[in-house]
């Protein structure tokens, strides 16, 4: 991956304790999976920043490579990749997501 793109990604994921790459915005998600993650974070009262990958096709492809993860949404906590919708849901249900966030 080109270093410029890597830098852009790392700036984003480190810009907030909890950062979500999603389709659309938290107020207007453009995909059911992104909507689910937003809803889980909101239900737990977890504050997060997000980026709409539909606004940047190059970044959208680059984050898949960066995280070794082929789909969107992608959740980061403290700069570390956590997973997509299924993992976020399982971690939320087990209480582990909250633990990661308050750590």
């Amino acid at each position, binding site marked *: 991956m080109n270093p410029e793109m890597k830098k852009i990604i790392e700036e984003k994921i480190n810009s907030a304790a909890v950062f979500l790459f999603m389709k659309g915005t938290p107020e207007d998600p453009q*995909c*059911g*999976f992104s909507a689910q993650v937003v809803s889980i974070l909101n239900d737990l009262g977890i504050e997060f920043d997000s980026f709409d990958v539909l606004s940047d096709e190059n970044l959208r492809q680059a984050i898949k490579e960066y995280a*070794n*993860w*082929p*789909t969107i949404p992608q959740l980061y906590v403290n700069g570390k*990749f*956590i*997973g*997509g*919708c*299924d*993992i976020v849901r*399982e*971690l939320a249900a087990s209480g582990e997501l909250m633990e990661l966030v308050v750590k």
Partner: protein
Amino acid sequence: MLNRIRQKLEAAFPGAKVQIADTSAGHETHNSSGAHLAVSITYQGFAGKSLLEQHQMVYAVLKEEMKEQVHALKIKTRTE
């Protein structure tokens, strides 16, 4: 496509129990980008790996499919 995906997963994870379903119905509005599938895999080799690593192992096997044919893959992994 379902059979081919099942064969790939069974070949990659020897002895695994693989269930796969096409859940595309209900997603017609954005079906142009590929199928919605759900897989459930029970595989001893997942033991000791994090959930993230387990899902990455599944995605690695289906790398080609994820590029074009599959829009979303719901994954459930178990060790036993």
